[in-house]
């Protein structure tokens, strides 16, 4: 350590929210989820279980509220007061929004969750001591805690299905959606080996890959040609500070980010659900 280092980089170290914090992003992975074609079929959720070694908690623990679905489909009734829900149900795929100014990060006493150069909220399982403050401070409530040693519940030979690319979490550790970081890293390395940039669509999260209606689009929002970036641009959703941002040119564009007013800068854009008047 050297104070010289600190003094030299002082300005960099002091770069704050308006300047996007201390970051030189090389990617910013993001999503666009089209709620108009999301049918709430749960394919994404199950794909997530298969990809990320999620624990099945069983009926009693589910009842206690200790279930571990990183990707969950929330179902709301907008016509609960009418005689019939005549506009169907409202389905919302909800996973970690990988916020640009995540509220979970600063509160972790041991910095087990931090911001990666490709714009993800990394959760370092090995560093986590389970204070669970991050979950308390997450407006989306998408962080899941290992209340038990769930790996003990994988009956032989179910455990042979576990994905060796990522760890199986032990009790006392917080976990959450990682945007399938193991896939991102794999493609990263591959691209490096062939020294080229990652092509758009080369990395697919498990949920995006499974989604039968293609409602979930995943990609690098910094890559101007990526499908996801085009969608963000088309629907006039910009990253960054809510307050300093200009309003949409066309307010009717469908893109929005949930709890935008909290200014956490989520990496997931949702497209409004459309309904015909019959």
């Amino acid at each position, binding site marked *: 350590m050297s104070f010289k280092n600190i003094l030299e980089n002082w300005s960099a170290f002091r770069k704050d929210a308006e300047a996007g914090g201390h970051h030189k992003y090389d990617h910013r992975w993001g999503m666009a989820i089209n709620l*108009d*074609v999301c*049918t*709430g*079929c*749960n*394919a994404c*959720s*199950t*794909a997530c*279980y*298969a990809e990320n070694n999620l624990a*099945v*908690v069983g*009926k009693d623990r*589910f*009842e206690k509220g200790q*279930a571990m*679905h990183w990707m*969950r*489909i*929330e*179902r*709301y*009734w*907008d*016509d*609960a007061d*009418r*005689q*019939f*829900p005549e*506009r*169907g*149900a409202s*389905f919302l795929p909800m996973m970690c929004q990988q916020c640009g100014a995540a509220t979970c990060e600063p509160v972790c006493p041991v910095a087990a969750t931090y911001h990666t150069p490709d714009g993800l909220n990394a959760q370092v399982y090995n560093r986590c001591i389970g204070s669970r403050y991050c979950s308390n401070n997450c407006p989306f409530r998408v962080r899941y805690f290992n209340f038990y040693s769930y790996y003990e519940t994988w*009956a*032989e030979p*179910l455990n*042979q*299905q576990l994905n*060796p690319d990522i760890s199986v979490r032990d009790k006392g550790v917080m976990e959450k959606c990682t945007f399938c970081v193991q896939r991102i890293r794999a493609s990263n390395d591959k691209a490096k080996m062939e020294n080229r940039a990652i092509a758009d669509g080369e990395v697919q999260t*498990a949920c995006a890959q499974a*989604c*039968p*209606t*293609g*409602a979930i689009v995943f990609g690098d929002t910094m890559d101007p040609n990526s499908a996801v970036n085009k969608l963000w641009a*088309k629907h006039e959703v910009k990253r960054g500070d809510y307050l300093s941002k200009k309003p949409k040119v066309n307010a*009717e*564009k*469908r893109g929005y980010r*949930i*709890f935008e007013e909290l200014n956490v800068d989520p990496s997931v854009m*949702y497209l*409004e659900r*459309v*309904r*015909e*008047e019959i």
Partner: protein
Amino acid sequence: MSGFKVNRRDFLRVLGWGGASTALVGCDMPTTVTLEEGKEDVVAYFMPEEYVIPGVGVWYASTCTQCAAGCGIHGRVREGRALKLEGNPESVINRGKTCMMGQAGVQAHYNPDRLTQPLMREGGALKPASWEVALKKIAEKTASANGDRVAWLSGAVSGHQAVLINDVLNTFGSKQHFVHETIHASVWQAVARDMLGDAQPVLRMDKAKSILSFGADFLGTWQSPVHFATQYAKFRSGKRGVLIQVEPKMSLTGGSADAWVAVRPGTEGILALGIAQNLVKRGWAKGEVPAKLKEVLAKYELGMVANATGVAGDRIQRITAALKDHAPSLVLAGAPVEGGENGYDAVSAVMLLNILLGNIGQTIEPAAQFAEARMQARSGGTRGALEFSKLAAAKKLDVAFISHANPVYHAPGFMKMKDAMANVGFKVVMTQFPDETAMQADVVLPLYSAIEDWGTHVAAYNGGVATLSFQQPLMEPLYKDTRGFGDVALSLLKQRKPKEYAAFNDYYAYLKASVSNMPAAVAKGDKNKDAAWNALLQKGVLETKATVGKFKVNTATVAAVADVSADVQFPYRLLPSARLGLWDGRHANSPWLQESPDQISKVVWGSWVEMHPVTAAKLGVKSGDYVRVTSAQGSLEAQAYVFNGIHPEAIAVPLGQGHQEYGRYAKGLGVNPYAILNPVIEKKTGEVAAYATRVSVTKLDKSARLVHMGSSDTQMGRKLVSTIPATVYRRTEGEA
């Protein structure tokens, strides 16, 4: 890892295609583990084969068998273990997509409750036995059997498996192959055959601008959900199509509807005729309307229809108008309509709408049938089980082979399948799990999982492109004492006709020979059969020559639809609703699918009884209370789920639970509505009218928290799922 063995030679054989298939999938490079006699041979990693890269996965193409839709899949294999299934982009059916059941395919494979060795009944109990003994026993028992005293009951099968079943039966001179599927579209197919001259018309949702679906849960459980989902995505894009769902209980598809219309259960057909009448009256009907038809429609004017169906007259008019404005349209009928006692007539009425709206040839196209008739899909409904049970009960069966099916669980209670099977002389059950049917067998032959087995599949609904899709092992079998279905069938054949089948020492050889000799297969590509064969396995699907039919439209069969009778003792109609996930109950042993909530009610790990708040108020029931649902056939008890997505006259109990056997995850969980179905048979098709049972509901003084996902049913003023009217959508991006 201790569970499974790798026979090195076999594995290298697999790797041959693996190496090639990666070129296609373009994801990873091949790898392997070397396991000798189940002991991990660590040395192998010090001196790996030149193609081995530890820690890198290989993708193999195969076919999903979680339901009968026949989606193409890619399976990721690493260190010799199948880890993850994804859709195969080459497959016309699912275009690289999968549903939740497909994702859970690996759990059917790694399920801890699989059968690991043959069982034989000795002194009333099933005892472990070796394959030799088991097959010898079968040989003895079947030696004398012949003719129609031999039957084979299976689920929907196709491809070479169907051929083999057929051949086995032929050796007995039997024609009795019964196909039993709880979730089916048989009535729809029958009607399509009679009115269009094509049992399996292609439905072009991507072309349609509006879809009127009478309870057809095409996003969930109807025919080919993933295929329809991919089509639905196109349907919703660009000039966004309009989806109107008419059904007594909200299905997954209903959840996505622009307009969800609750109709009095059993009267969908009347509503269809009402709309038809409205079309004709307003002169919107395309083409010439026969006089006879006019007569039929005459009495279905708005007022009468509104009374019968509970759908307001102006609503019916708006729906009619919507269909006209958003042409071309597409009108579908699903389980609730097909399952009525008047199912055939009701579906005919629905099909009539397609004709009147001029959808035939527009959004409904003739099927392109797979050229090889023997390999076409044998899809059936509940009729198969019904006939089988009748024969069995009448002691008309000496030998019964049962595969790909679990009739003792799936058959409606009134068939008394268990007792019926007791009257069958000798029962051979080929299955993967210790299910209810296996428990009744004399010999149980444990099969490979879909991930270990060979096979070919021809989808019943192929989306207009005739393909043969290949199922190949993603990994070596977990249990050495299990065998592939094809191999078993072959050995049965060898027992009967040793000479003809001597050439094939296993199903793989049989398949390769048979496929390589198929004209279409070798038509393209080089003449080297091995290369062509390997190319096929890389691709996973084979486009074949198709016989495209022509429509012969006929409205003569359209008749008046009988109204449903009211009943004082049993005031409600029972809807045994199917659900994507547990399906008909075959996936109840998958922890993932049990824990993955029902899409509409969000309930997990159990059964529930859906009812409308009005009904609930009448009964003094709130969500979580236990209720008893009683029909003439019996009763069941479960917790109530009260929500307004169901018609007040209907009571819905989902399929999938209520297993007596079937392993630790399924056993003793929930109830099976099929147990209390009334013996109502749809006259014209002979299918069980599953939605025609009337029940009464009584509240039990027992209540508990209904275990479900999520708390608030409303968004509580937050902007979580925001909805905009389609007019706005059209302004901004509709033209895109």
